[in-house]
């Protein structure tokens, strides 16, 4: 294990937000009853949205393909249960813009009948990389840790540098969220099987299951599950947010940093979430696509916190109802963790592949202080895991100094929220940084557009010039030719008329 270091490295900065995991930590995973209607968004991943491949009124099986990928960086979408397609509509999704998106509305028939054509690989643990990856792609598996990047792409062995170690991410550093630790406690064997398949796909030799020290139950379960597997190690890490971010985890384990703009495999390591591992296993072993996920429902505003096994497309309201509803005084509803999640506008928004948690937060749990001017305390620099100067980014973003944003590396921010967590002036730094990123992209595409136009017009000019020159040349040629002809003709006639003269002269 060349790149795995004997010690753990503490990455720069980090914070210790109040964990609040005790709320749902001991709640075993329970299935929620099938809702009356599912809204399955056509884009639940990073990349190109899917195209629907079913028509309204059509009957579908559980696990049947309903949204087809149209590019490689995409993940297919499947029916979460058997039933009838009601329509393809715009529906609220948990996007931070609060804008609706294309969803397939599915009315379950209550039979929950699997698509009979779905099959796993014959000899999955001896399969080659390509066949595992194909199954993963067919299953629409994406990274369930938050990035929702299509997993089949991440499982492609990189050219050049081999992947030595695969890190299974069970760090779960976001407060409140307990779904990963419940999966590790209750489905540890499935996690290990998925990890073995992924190791085959990416041709990694070692696997480290990374868990923070505050999850003794998960650590014990995983240690038991890897018994007899020489290439597996359970790595316990001290608690520090955002250790679950892939770059920070890689740094903690390998002491190496993923090069800016590079891929994690450049360090010889790759990171996969525990939930992804289970999804890969189901897809490869049984051909079952990713149609359910484990969602933590928590926060002090929820009557009965729980870890739920939910069909994708289930409206958030159904989860809350299943957990006894909201207590009075809920101020904010959040999808995913309180550090990096998004505020929910509408409880009709469905659970998607990226939904790890639904939180109902009360006034005492959230920030609600007015923003003040930056006092340059430097706290944000101290905690930033990317070693950025967040206050300087914000200052530039606020003053629209878009040209100066790249020099403070705005694009390297992972939006972990640590800076805003410690800011005494209550500045929503991440908000401004996001704005800054968008402004830079917009300016870049503007510039690119302008450059393109410039190039085009220059090309056109050049072409016109060339054409003109060509015309001139032709004209000139013709003129020359004509002259030559004239000369020749003149010469000829002169010859003819001159001949006697010559003769004469000769004579």
């Amino acid at each position, binding site marked *: 294990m060349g790149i795995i270091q004997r010690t753990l490295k503490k990455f720069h900065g980090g914070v210790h937000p109040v964990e609040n995991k005790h709320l749902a930590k001991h709640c075993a995973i329970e299935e929620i009853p099938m809702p009356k209607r599912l809204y399955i968004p056509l884009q639940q991943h990073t990349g190109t949205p899917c195209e629907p491949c079913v028509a309204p009124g059509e009957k579908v099986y559980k696990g049947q393909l309903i949204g087809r990928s149209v590019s490689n960086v995409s993940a297919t979408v499947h029916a979460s249960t058997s039933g009838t397609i009601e329509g393809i509509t715009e529906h609220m999704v948990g996007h931070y813009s609060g804008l609706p998106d294309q969803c397939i509305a599915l009315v379950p028939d209550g039979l929950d009948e699997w698509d009979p054509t779905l099959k796993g690989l014959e000899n999955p643990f001896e399969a080659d990389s390509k066949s595992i990856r194909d199954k993963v792609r067919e299953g629409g598996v994406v990274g369930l840790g938050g990035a929702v990047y299509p997993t089949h792409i991440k499982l492609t062995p990189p050219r050049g540098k081999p992947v030595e170690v695969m890190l299974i991410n069970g760090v779960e550093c976001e407060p409140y969220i307990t779904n990963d630790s419940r999966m590790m406690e209750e489905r540890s064997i499935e996690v290990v099987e998925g990890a073995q398949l992924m190791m085959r796909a990416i041709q990694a030799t070692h696997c480290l299951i990374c868990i923070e020290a505050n999850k003794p139950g998960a650590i014990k379960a995983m240690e038991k599950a890897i018994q007899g597997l020489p290439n597996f190690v359970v790595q316990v890490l001290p608690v520090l947010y955002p250790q679950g971010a892939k770059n920070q985890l890689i740094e903690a384990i390998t002491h190496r940093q993923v090069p800016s703009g590079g891929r994690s495999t*450049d360090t010889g390591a790759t990171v996969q979430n525990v939930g992804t591992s289970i999804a890969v296993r189901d897809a490869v072993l049984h051909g079952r696509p990713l149609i359910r996920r484990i969602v933590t429902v928590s926060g002090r505003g929820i009557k009965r916190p729980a870890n739920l096994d939910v069909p994708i497309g289930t409206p958030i309201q159904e989860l809350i109802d299943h957990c006894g509803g909201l207590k009075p005084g809920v101020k904010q509803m959040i999808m995913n963790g309180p550090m990096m999640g998004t505020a929910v506008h509408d409880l009709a928004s469905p659970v998607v592949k990226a939904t790890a948690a639904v939180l109902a937060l009360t006034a005492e749990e959230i920030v609600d202080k007015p923003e003040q001017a930056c006092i340059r305390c430097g706290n944000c620099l101290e905690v930033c895991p990317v*070693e950025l100067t967040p206050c300087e980014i914000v200052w530039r973003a606020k003053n629209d100094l878009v040209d100066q944003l790249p020099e403070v590396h705005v694009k390297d921010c992972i939006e972990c929220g640590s800076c805003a*967590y410690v800011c005494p002036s209550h500045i929503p730094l991440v908000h401004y940084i996001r704005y800054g990123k968008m402004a830079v992209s917009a300016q870049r595409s503007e510039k690119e557009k302008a450059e393109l136009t410039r190039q085009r017009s220059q090309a056109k000019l050049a072409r016109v010039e060339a054409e003109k020159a060509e015309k001139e040349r032709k004209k000139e040629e013709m003129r020359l030719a004509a002259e030559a002809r004239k000369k020749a003709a003149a010469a000829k006639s002169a010859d003819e008329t001159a001949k006697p003269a010559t003769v004469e002269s000769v004579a």
Partner: protein
Amino acid sequence: MTKSSFKISSSPFVHGGLSVPEVMKSVIWALLPAAAMGVMVFGWSALFVMLITVAACVVSERLFNIIRGRPSTVGDQSAALTGLLLAMSMPPNSPWWLCLVGGFFAIVLGKQLYGGLGYNMFNPAMIARVFLLISFPVQMTSWPAPTPLTGDHALTLSQGLAMIISAPFNTPELLDALSTATPLGQFRTETGMGKTVREALGGAFGFDILAAMGGMIKGSLGETSAVLLTLGGIYLLRKRVISWHIPMTMILGCIVPAAIFWLIDNSTYPDPLFHLVTGGLIIGAFFMATDYVTSPVTPKGQIIFGLGCGLLTFLIRTWGGYPEGVSFAIVIMNATVPLIDQYTRPLTYGKKKQTL
């Protein structure tokens, strides 16, 4: 977009709970023991100097808010802190009007005209002290000898008040009787007259390091108790309100060159301990130079800044026109902060050279 009944905001949704007033409050707490010591040592007049200066700052802040039609910023407690810091760098028998002028200058010209807390370039307390020092050199350098509250010569509460209110018009004999040079000033005058260090410091003058550390020497109001100020600084370090970078480097930046010169010629240059415990080096290092707004944000920048402050202090004390250099040094270094910040930006994640 539909109207949501829930609060819509951007991540993160939770907060560590630190706020600006809390930061300011910690610093005020850290200063209070030394301030109390100042009152003990210099008598009641010291208390009035502090009260008037703090009040002048807070009232100026509020008035400026009202004039600009902005919500009150008194609650962030930075004005009160500025007042306390300024008072502690003034003579403990300063006349009332000097306190008022200083407080007003610090808040209005030193801070609010720049746009308020966070936008000022110079440390308001320090720029006000520099302004007072230049404009009212006599008042700013008439340092009373310690008259401990418990001592025989102690003024009563009303005498103390009278001194502040009527000074400098009515009690010249009181002032004369009390005022002497600070150790630094004395040192400059006496060595200037051709005396050696030992003569200047010892003997008649009776400079005593122990007394200096305890605060029983002449000097500005709170600057004198090196021990209590250091304890306050340690409290701030432990609470992580400040980091070690600025105080450490500022102290070293002053006493290391002082030590070198003292080793070369100890008959001309005082020993480094003298630099450490007299004047405003300790209060400057822990409380003035560490002012967030006017110091660099990067650790590397803070080290450069601290060294600069320390070195300039030493240079001004040794060869400059004023016996005390801390406030000038800090104000000069404040001006370099934007530049320092720009050139000390850390290398971000993934941009360092490493062997993969």
